[in-house]
């Protein structure tokens, strides 16, 4: 009786063969169905995913002691040469697979969040520059306007007014001493309309992030807000990577420069940009920020694992509990540590 361990099944998309340890073919099944590029694409993606083809499975039922070897056929000197037309069929099937893979990338929420979050970040940075310029530009003419308290109204007033006097009236102040020329006013007005439009676009972008994040990472969104949660996922390069990340790494996400400096000997960063944007960290006294950031990073790490590995999403009760603990940390360290 032959021992079974050396019996192997070699296969490719065309056929499967059972071989004994001396390389003798014990059994063979050919793929004899109608060959089309799309059926071949199915078979190739099955093999790629590590699943067995129907022929291989049948052979395995006939020879339960045999082991399928996915790399065996390639080095098998007796493996049949490709026949006429088979190379072309493979070519067409791989093109189908490649295109399907490209199309499937849009089904990946991580990639969609990346586009949204990056677009929002770029839009926001452009918006800040333009909005500041618009306010300064309008303020140069409308000297009576309050550039702090009326800030949000200024771009709207300019965009809607027929001329600079109208904008001043809309803001409830006296008309300016000097007016821009007609073409200069047109430039200022269209600049202001741009600011107003990009404010709306920013709002739409962030609403889209909120909707996706609340569904995709509900616990993390509940803990730190959907926008911050989405940014963390994007910085980590996907939800899975964030879920597998140690909480110490999550804590310093967004602090690339500080981490690079730390590798050269500087003290470690207490928190990255995202954690710092949480009021629990940024509105706490500086001597407890590191402690709170470390605590929240630990909780965020658990939250994203709950979301990724199909746990029960956190509700407000758990978030309140966490915020209570943050208050306890602050209460425990009311005074800055003495320098010694």
């Amino acid at each position, binding site marked *: 009786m032959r021992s079974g361990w050396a019996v192997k099944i070699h296969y*490719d998309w065309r056929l499967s063969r059972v071989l004994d340890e001396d390389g003798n073919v014990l059994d063979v099944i050919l793929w004899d169905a109608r060959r089309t590029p799309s059926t071949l694409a199915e078979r*190739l993606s099955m093999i*790629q995913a590590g699943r067995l083809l129907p022929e291989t499975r049948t052979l395995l039922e006939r020879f339960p002691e045999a082991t399928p070897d996915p*790399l065996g056929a390639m080095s098998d000197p007796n493996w049949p040469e*490709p026949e006429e037309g088979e*190379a072309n069929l493979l*070519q067409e099937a791989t093109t189908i697979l490649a295109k399907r893979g490209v199309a499937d990338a849009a089904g990946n929420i991580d990639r969609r969040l990346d586009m949204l979050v990056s677009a929002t970040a770029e839009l926001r940075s452009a918006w800040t520059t333009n909005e500041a310029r618009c306010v300064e530009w309008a303020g140069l003419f409308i000297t009576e306007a309050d550039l702090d308290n009326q800030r949000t109204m200024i771009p709207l007033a300019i965009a809607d007014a027929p001329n600079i006097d109208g904008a001043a009236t809309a803001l409830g102040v006296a008309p300016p001493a000097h007016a821009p020329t007609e073409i200069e006013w047109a430039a200022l007005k269209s600049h202001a309309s741009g600011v107003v439009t990009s404010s709306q676009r920013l709002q739409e972008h962030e609403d889209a992030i909120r909707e996706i994040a609340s569904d995709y990472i509900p616990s993390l969104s509940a803990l730190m807000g959907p926008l911050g949660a989405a940014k963390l996922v994007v910085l980590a390069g996907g939800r899975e990577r964030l879920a597998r990340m140690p909480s110490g790494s999550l804590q310093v996400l967004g602090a690339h420069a500080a981490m690079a400096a730390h*590798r050269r000997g500087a003290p470690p960063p207490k928190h990255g940009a995202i954690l710092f944007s949480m009021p629990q960290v940024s509105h706490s006294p500086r001597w407890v920020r590191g402690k709170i950031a470390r605590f929240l990073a630990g909780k965020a790490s658990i939250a994203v694992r709950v979301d990724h590995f199909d746990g029960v999403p956190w509700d407000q009760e758990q978030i309140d509990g966490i915020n209570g603990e943050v208050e306890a940390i602050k209460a425990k360290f009311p005074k800055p540590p003495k320098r010694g």
Partner: protein
Amino acid sequence: MRGERRKRDGRIEWRRWDPTKSKVAAALQRTKGGPSELLPQTGSTCLYLGASSGGTVSHIHDIVCGAGNHHGGQVVAVEISPRMMRDLAALAEGRNGLVPVLGDARCPEMVAPFIRGRADWIHQDLSIADQAETFVRMAVAFLAPGGVGLLSLKAASERASDGDDDSRFAKAERILGESELEVVERIDLAGLEEQHVVFRCALGAL
């Protein structure tokens, strides 16, 4: 390729292979041996890991397959990024014998279903850590006896804890040397491609 210079000479078209854009072309210029020893044979089976959008792959395909694949070669080009695969798949549509594979170039099982046999020529160009270990695994699985294995090693992709560029290259060379492979030549691409070294390997005598 974008911005490529071409020249037509009757029925023959010549394409410029830019050594500052292709590590294989750079290695051809910098090798101390015969440049043709780095290239695959016409009509052979080639495996390209980390094909990107297919710049270098197109030149390899020209050599191995020719227009309409009249040489009967096969170039299997593996790339994990769907964005790059988009361009690569478009390239493959006009190039018979070029097989685009969307998948992880570190897994032999991902590549095996597409390749018609052991490869006579392998080039690996991946921006990941553990490039040398990956290359050993893939070359042992796929390289044919007597075949050429090229590893383009990017120092910046290896882990920061492995020290500076030179020690990263040395570590890779040690890993290759301790494996079933044999390092035939170490080609420094300085001047053409910074922080890159190409290792030309062959399957050693076992």
